[in-house]
């Protein structure tokens, strides 16, 4: 370290720099907040059902096995686009049925396969969860995840 740097100078650089970067960060957060609300997500389709569906997602701690937009545990598949995988983008009714059929069949109990618990969701909860997955699949994620099959 340079002998020329005094402790007072180091302290001033630390406090000044921290405030400087934090102010920039808060400003960019505000801009990102605006961008999310107006550009990358669809406020018009964020219905009460989607909000309730997010609560179903949280109540059952899905994120402690799955990831959503890449965040969560890595024990079970990513679900950001599960709605599209179940065909819900083309036929919402079929997508919702596929989701329920899948979850009703759990746990499979097959030896050597990872087990998803039985969450005993109500019909209403299935509707809401489907709405949540449908809405999440429309988020502009800068083309993540990579789709090598296409």
């Amino acid at each position, binding site marked *: 370290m340079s002998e020329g740097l005094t402790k007072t100078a180091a302290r001033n650089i630390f406090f000044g720099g921290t405030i400087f970067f934090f102010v920039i960060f808060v400003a960019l957060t505000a801009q990102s907040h605006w961008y999310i609300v107006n550009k990358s997500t669809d406020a018009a389709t964020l219905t009460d059902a989607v909000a309730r569906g997010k609560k179903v997602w949280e109540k059952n701690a899905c994120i*402690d096995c799955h990831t959503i937009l890449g*965040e969560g545990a890595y024990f079970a598949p990513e679900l950001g686009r599960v709605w599209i995988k179940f065909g819900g983008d083309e036929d919402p009714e079929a997508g919702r049925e596929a989701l329920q059929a899948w979850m009703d069949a759990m746990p499979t109990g097959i030896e050597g396969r990872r087990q998803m618990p039985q969450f005993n969701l109500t019909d209403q909860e299935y509707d809401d969860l489907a709405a949540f997955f449908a809405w999440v699949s429309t988020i502009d994620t800068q083309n993540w995840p*990579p789709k090598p099959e296409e």
Partner: protein
Amino acid sequence: MKYQTQKLAYPYFIAAMGLFVAQVLGGLISGTIYVFPNFLSVVLPFNIIRMIHTNALIVWLLMGFFGAAYYLLPEETETEIYSPKLAWIQFWLFLFGAAAAVVGYLFHIHEGREFLEQPTWIKAAIVVVALMFLFNITMTMLRGKRTVIATILTMGLWGLALFFLFAFYDPANLSLDKLYWWYVVHLWVEGVWELILAAILGFLLIKMTGVDREVIEKWLYVIVGLALFSGILGTGHHYYWIGTPGYWQWLGSIFSAMEVFPFLAMVIFAFYIIRKSSRNHPNKAALLWVMGCTVLSFFGAGVWGFMHTLAPINYYTHGTQITAAHGHLAFFGAYVMINLAIITYAMPHLRGMQPYNQNLNMWSFWIMSSGMVFMTFILTIAGVLQVHLERVMGMNYMEVQDQLALFYWMRLGAGLVVVLAVLLFVYSIFSKGKEEQATIN
């Protein structure tokens, strides 16, 4: 031990060790489920045990930080802790909250955002605990000497409490939720926790090496400056793919790439100070943990973080075992090891003994570190393979996981080694050393 109230650290360290054991046992069960997927699948599903594994980690690290603060602040400020009674109330409330959370998890009482699964009333209790603690240490600071170490530590602890408040904001918009969720998670571990880490590190180095405080304090400012200048905008490396604007791919890449520098500075700082040391401190084990902490946090947080932080790479690695590899070594190197360092240093003082069980403790250091490093290597290889098969070749998630079975077996083995080393560590600090018994007789 010069001050009576330093004893307050003792219950915190004991509780921390209890939760540490719970945490690694949770990890061992999770690792077992990876290779025997039907194990406990109905009574204790993976999501519950994973919650216990991560939450117990966070809580015991916090217990350790609180204990460290009560231990080092009297010596730094040259005054007793303002209110020992409040510290005791804080301790029991926090321990009760932690125990209630874990028991509740077992009965599926939880919320569902990662790491913030605590029910709201427990989150509120955590805030009350934090306020009691901050009041106590701030009052202590105000009536004593305000050293740089005390200032940086207190600043880190205030930041910790403030950013936790974002845990109460849970908007229906998932992208917004994630935007602010990182205010807790990233600004903790890649922000204010680094201040706490650096302060404890500085304290231990002053005590054990006898190097001039002025030199150490100047370094400390440089280290925490590097940490926050890179770490604050480095949050951007979590804002690549969650619905946030594209400019974060540039900002996040540039600033988070620089997050390696504070950790590099810590390694150089610690080894430079130790070499300058004029003192031959009898607690060799504590010094070993200090050195190990700087080295493994440099690799775990610094190098392993850098490995997947650039946006074009992260596009492929995001949400794979690569993240798991990095997470394990970063938490271990930085925050677990600094806690074990201060505990190893403080225990003889707290128990009124000369340093004891040094060999056992150092064995636990080498075994635990080897286990964690091996686990990290294994998860990294698994991650690279997963990225290639899943993200490049386009194979199905579960098919890829089947391909990784061998690595999950090796990870379980590494985990078992770590658990044994943790038990050895706990035994070494709580038992009466052979040397001690000899002197007592």
